[in-house]
């Protein structure tokens, strides 16, 4: 009262505008609390990074991982993290003057590079990398450290004769006894003896690479056509059974998983908010009937019906969004209705009515901003549950289909080759778990920020 008087009386002595304490709105307050919540902010940052990776799949695939989602690189089995493959599409060419000069690759010197020579070149290339001491021969420890060699789970190691036949379709195994079968008498392997541990490309991949470089399609490269060979790139998270780069697929999977999460959450949001708000506003019999419908639907085994729906109509991405979105709106409708009903009776709404604020004004300036908190919180917490539902369906083979992929589908593929390539399910499951965890932390943080009463 005093302050106001002083203001109307003109500027009093020692008064400055800066002395006025600016009021903080609910949202500013909430934002400040959210910023302070480390778990929620970490979650937010992770989700934003995942989202960026998902949006930037194309450039990341071209310039980052250098592999495409559906690009297959056959090896005897899935390649472990850190192994190398030669990309077909997004490759950098090696400098055609040094190690990869035309004459060096063209071993028989007939002026033409064949796919056989390309294969051989990559064997030498890989050999030089895994031969870490550079003495031109491979010791057992270098063999074990090579990305393509595998720890052997065999109880009884075969004799050298059996191993000779068996190794044709098995990844190089890192047991000294087997190593000695192939190594020379000095206990070292030469390039010729190393076998599949240096097999960066197989014959069919070598011809594929040749085809991409071969301008006149005559099945061989001449020195005019030759501009270098593609640089092998690392599969940072390994490959799956078809030799597809796991990291690339994980990034593409982020796109599908996050998109389904956001869109389906949006579908539930729209249905739930309109249903709940209508019931709350109208009240009476309409409200009663509408909420009875919600109660009844709570009793339905929705996921079971969605499984049925997807198995009947399958392969439709749109249906997937709608089906998952349509099952999550019930709680949203209840929350919104509860909010609307309790807010309708509040004094500030009455006060707004008294001073003649229009109905639209009340809805948009008073009801919605105040009801928004719980709605935002619930939507944030809905995204992970929707993502989980998508992953669940994809895991059953009822969601996303090849050539596209999602984390759920990758987990399903990973499960089938869990013994030989556990990194596929660990990577996809890990990505899913980290994202769900982040979104849950973010949702909890938002709830604490918007509803200070729950603060401990």
């Amino acid at each position, binding site marked *: 009262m005093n302050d106001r008087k002083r203001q109307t009386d003109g500027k009093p002595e020692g008064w400055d505008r800066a002395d006025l304490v600016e009021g903080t709105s609910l949202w500013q307050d909430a934002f400040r609390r959210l910023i302070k919540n480390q778990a929620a902010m970490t979650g937010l940052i992770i989700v934003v990074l995942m989202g960026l990776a998902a949006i930037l799949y194309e450039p990341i695939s071209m310039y980052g991982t250098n592999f495409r989602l559906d690009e297959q690189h056959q090896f005897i089995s899935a390649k472990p993290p850190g192994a190398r493959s030669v990309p077909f599409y997004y490759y950098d060419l090696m400098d055609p003057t040094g190690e990869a000069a035309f004459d060096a690759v063209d071993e028989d010197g007939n002026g033409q590079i064949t796919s056989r020579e390309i294969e051989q070149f990559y064997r030498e290339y890989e050999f030089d990398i895994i031969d870490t001491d550079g003495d031109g021969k491979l010791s057992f420890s270098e063999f074990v450290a090579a990305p393509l060699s595998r720890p052997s789970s065999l109880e009884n190691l075969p004799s050298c004769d059996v191993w000779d036949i068996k190794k044709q379709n098995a990844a190089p195994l890192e047991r000294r006894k087997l190593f000695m079968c192939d190594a020379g008498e000095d206990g070292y392997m030469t390039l010729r003896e190393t076998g599949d541990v240096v097999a960066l490309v197989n014959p069919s991949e070598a011809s594929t690479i040749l085809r991409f470089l071969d301008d006149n399609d005559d099945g061989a490269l001449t020195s005019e056509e030759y501009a270098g060979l593609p640089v092998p790139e690392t599969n940072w998270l390994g490959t799956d059974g078809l030799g597809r780069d796991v990291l690339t697929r994980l990034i593409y999977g982020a796109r599908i998983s996050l998109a389904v999460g956001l869109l389906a959450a949006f579908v539930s949001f729209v249905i739930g908010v309109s249903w709940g708000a209508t019931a709350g506003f109208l009240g009476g019999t309409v409200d009663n009937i509408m909420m009875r419908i919600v109660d009844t639907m709570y*009793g339905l*085994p929705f996921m*079971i019906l969605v499984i049925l729906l997807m*198995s*009947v109509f399958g392969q439709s991405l749109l249906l997937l969004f709608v089906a998952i979105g349509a099952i999550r709106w019930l709680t949203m409708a209840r929350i919104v209705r509860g909010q609307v009903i309790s807010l309708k009776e509040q004094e500030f709404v009455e006060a707004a009515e008294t001073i003649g604020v229009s109905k639209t004004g009340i809805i948009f300036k008073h009801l919605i901003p105040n009801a928004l908190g719980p709605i935002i919180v619930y939507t944030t917490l809905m995204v*992970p549950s929707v993502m989980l539902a998508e992953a669940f369906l994809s*895991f059953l083979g009822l969601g996303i289909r090849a050539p596209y992929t999602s984390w*759920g589908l990758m987990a399903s593929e990973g499960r089938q080759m*869990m013994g030989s390539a556990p990194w596929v399910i660990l990577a996809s499951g890990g990505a899913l778990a980290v994202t769900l965890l982040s979104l849950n932390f973010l949702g909890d943080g938002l709830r604490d920020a918007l509803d200070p009463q729950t603060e401990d």
Partner: protein
Amino acid sequence: MTRYILRRIVSSIFVLLVIVTASLWLTRQAPSNPCQKEKEANTCACMKTFKLDRPTFPVWFGQAVDPVEGCQFWEPESSFSLGPINMVGLSDWGDTQYFLYMEQLVQGDLGPSMRNQNRTVNELLGQALPYTLQLGFQALLLAIIIGIPAGMFAGLKQNTAADYTTMTVAMVGVAVPNFVLGPILILLFAKGQQGLGWFDPGGWDTFKDSILPTITLALYYAAYIARLTRGGILEMVRKDFVRTARAKGLKESTVVTRHTLKGTILPVVSYLGPAFAAMLTGSVVVEQIFNLPGIGTYFVESALNRDYNMVIGAVIIYSSLLVALNFVVDIAYTMIDPRVDYEDR
């Protein structure tokens, strides 16, 4: 109370009716039917055996059934058509697929399996049900046994290292989906993998075989219940009556068990209904991962196979379990919390 129970029974029957109708309609919308993989000559006979040669419902749009060449399908004695809407005469309603199925269902017969020769759905699902039920109840029990004590422990020691550790574990439990957890458990504990080799990786012959699937299914709910319980405890310990109980010198253990626990348990009890529903769905995946002969395995397989009767049978069993359990949970709720007045609901 009696009125409430009666009303619940009526609405449960209504829910089941909606589900049967919806799933009957859904299965018939599929692009192929169970007879399509038979040899050409058999399609007609097969469709007649399973009565697929007639309209699903008394009213339909467009064509009722895809005709099979050289095959005389069922014809209603009277029918109308109003533009695109076709309708069987009232006297023939009993001969449509829907009513025939309902007639069977009322007698407790789920019909013959359309893919497994000479087996009935009752027989097949009857064999599978015990596995699914045992898995579901074991998981529910495990979730409660782990979840409630863990939540109480964390809540009573709020903001200590013990609290943070328990809740971090619970958070991770909520975030790791069961279809990731299952394979990881197999990798770590099953025979034939690099891990410890304690359990068989699949199948279900002894109780031991059910341990990994139960853990896989239960962990998420254990974590969630722990979070719920902790929240409940934190709310309760601030209540005046708890302070009074402490003030009059009751032992801490008595305060916890007699005064705080009841209020804490309430949200957990009301969560059990949805939890069991989600567990049933989750068991579909867990059964696949561990190769268990439960209903979920049949359900997914027959949904893709278009074994109509099996699919609807499985859906009916899932829904009945769900409806029954929700009912039990609501009754249990009144017993724990006398404030709940069912006459209003």
